[in-house]
């Protein structure tokens, strides 16, 4: 195993990265060269796809901005709801906790795509379509089960005595949360936040049905719309450029937060 390890690592990297590298190469290849292998090597390259994207209407960075806004807002909302709730649940009697765990776990497993129709009706009833702030509501609701699972485990990991001691010292509930408990579960909160952000950033069916105005689309919907514009001639070059630009923020996030993501899934989802 030891001697062949570099080989396995190489295989792993090729498998994980090759499809994305292909997108990268495609994004710099001129549209003619994509469909004609005979064009000589030096004449195949172009920046046209990127220029087209950035000067498009609406320009591509608009989608990045929309997705970041929705992602950030959903994450904030989810954490605001989940942290106090998880604290409360972690303080309950074990029998209660088990029941709640089961219900929350079932909700986390639920393929949420089946919910889009009823959610769309709600959006219509409350006039929440085409509103980037409003779409954070269903996202927070959908991300809540997973966030709860992760955070309940984090709170359960803390010794009860700590909380009790702080209470004896006369600290109120909010003070205890703020000064005693939050610093201790900060790592778990961070990793939960990252997972929620990824979910909101990547979500498709709800964004597809709630948003229709061109300048409000989130990244996944905008991308799929490029794809759907024609079945026969997808502008693959421009699309690949969009993929590259759209991946950069995630690449940065994953490289920076690898540890938190791993730790987050390690602590929570698994104990359920």
């Amino acid at each position, binding site marked *: 195993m030891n001697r062949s390890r570099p080989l396995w690592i190489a295989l792993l990297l090729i498998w994980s990265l090759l*499809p994305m590298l292909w997108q990268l190469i495609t994004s710099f290849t001129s549209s003619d060269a994509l469909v004609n292998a005979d064009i000589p090597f030096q004449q195949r390259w172009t920046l046209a796809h990127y220029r087209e994207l950035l000067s498009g209407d609406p320009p591509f960075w608009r989608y990045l901005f929309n997705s970041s806004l929705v992602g950030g807002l959903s994450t904030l909302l989810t954490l605001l709801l989940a942290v106090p709730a998880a604290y409360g649940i972690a303080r309950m009697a074990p029998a209660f906790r088990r029941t709640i765990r089961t219900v929350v776990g079932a*909700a986390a497993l639920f393929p949420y795509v089946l919910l889009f129709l009823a959610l769309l009706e709600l959006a219509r009833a409350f006039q929440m379509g085409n509103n980037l702030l409003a779409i954070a509501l269903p996202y927070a609701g959908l991300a809540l089960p997973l966030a709860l699972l992760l955070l309940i485990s984090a709170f359960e990991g803390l010794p009860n005595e700590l909380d009790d001691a702080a209470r004896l010292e006369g600290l109120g509930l909010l003070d205890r949360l703020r000064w005693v408990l939050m610093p201790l579960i900060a790592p778990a909160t961070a990793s939960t936040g990252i997972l929620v952000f990824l979910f909101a950033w990547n979500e498709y069916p709800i964004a597809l049905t709630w948003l229709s105005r061109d300048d409000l689309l989130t*990244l*996944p919907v905008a991308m*799929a719309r490029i794809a759907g514009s024609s079945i026969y001639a*997808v502008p693959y070059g421009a699309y690949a450029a969009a993929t590259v630009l759209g991946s950069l923020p995630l690449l940065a996030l994953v490289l920076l937060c690898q540890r938190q993501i791993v730790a987050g899934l390690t602590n929570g989802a698994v104990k359920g």
Partner: protein
Amino acid sequence: MALVFGWPMLRYSWLSMHASSVLTGLEPVSNQGANWIRLLEDARFWQDAVQTLRFAALSVGLEIVLALAMALLLDQRWRGRGVVRALSLLPWALPTTMMALGWRWIFNTPYGPLEQMAQSAGLSPLNLLSNPDWTWLATVMADVWKTTPFITLLLLAGLQTIPDDLYSAFRLEGGKTRQALTAITLPLLTPYILIGILFRTAQAAGVFDLIQVLTGGGPAGSTESIAQYAYLNAMRFLDFGYSATVMLAGFVLLSLVIFTAAVLLQISGLLRPLKS
């Protein structure tokens, strides 16, 4: 949570008993279970159900095996492990729709790289996205690529809970490194593998984005999933009553599959480590 998960189920139950389509002016009119009778006779629904299950079974199976290998590799200590871990996570972090189109380009006939390779190897065109018998395998491949890192993470978490002492003791007793995998690693990893299977089966059974963008359900409906059929009914045929019926039925089918799996595992005693 009650609003986002509970309300839709109630609303679907109610809608599924009503006709609510263009024909009724989009107003719900009770039709005494006609939706459910239609569902039972709807060959397309059952075909989609089979296709969804087939997709879920094969991709989850492949993902578990692949993820196990990846986790074992990433659990060992070597230089640069952190970066490789992060890079191998990337496919999972990227939006499904985004890479689904990337795959569509890779599978493209005749300009995609796979097709080009087949050509230079002198094979006949593969037609990866237009062959009703094979295209679903292309969707499985894209799904495996995308979601294996998620299971790898879970298994990696599991591997870290196994104390190193166990391996040292095993070697002291004269066990071979190879045997340690089946004697220690796999048994202790079982709960994590099961959770991975559970999570992924549920997700794969609800597959939507990937297939929607990669194949649109085609060719000839051979990759269409239940979620997609429900989506089509609501958004294209504007038949909300029947769409709700399809979704409820899909949910019931999925619950049945998971429930049967859980019972089978219970009987075979595999779930026991979960309870401790």
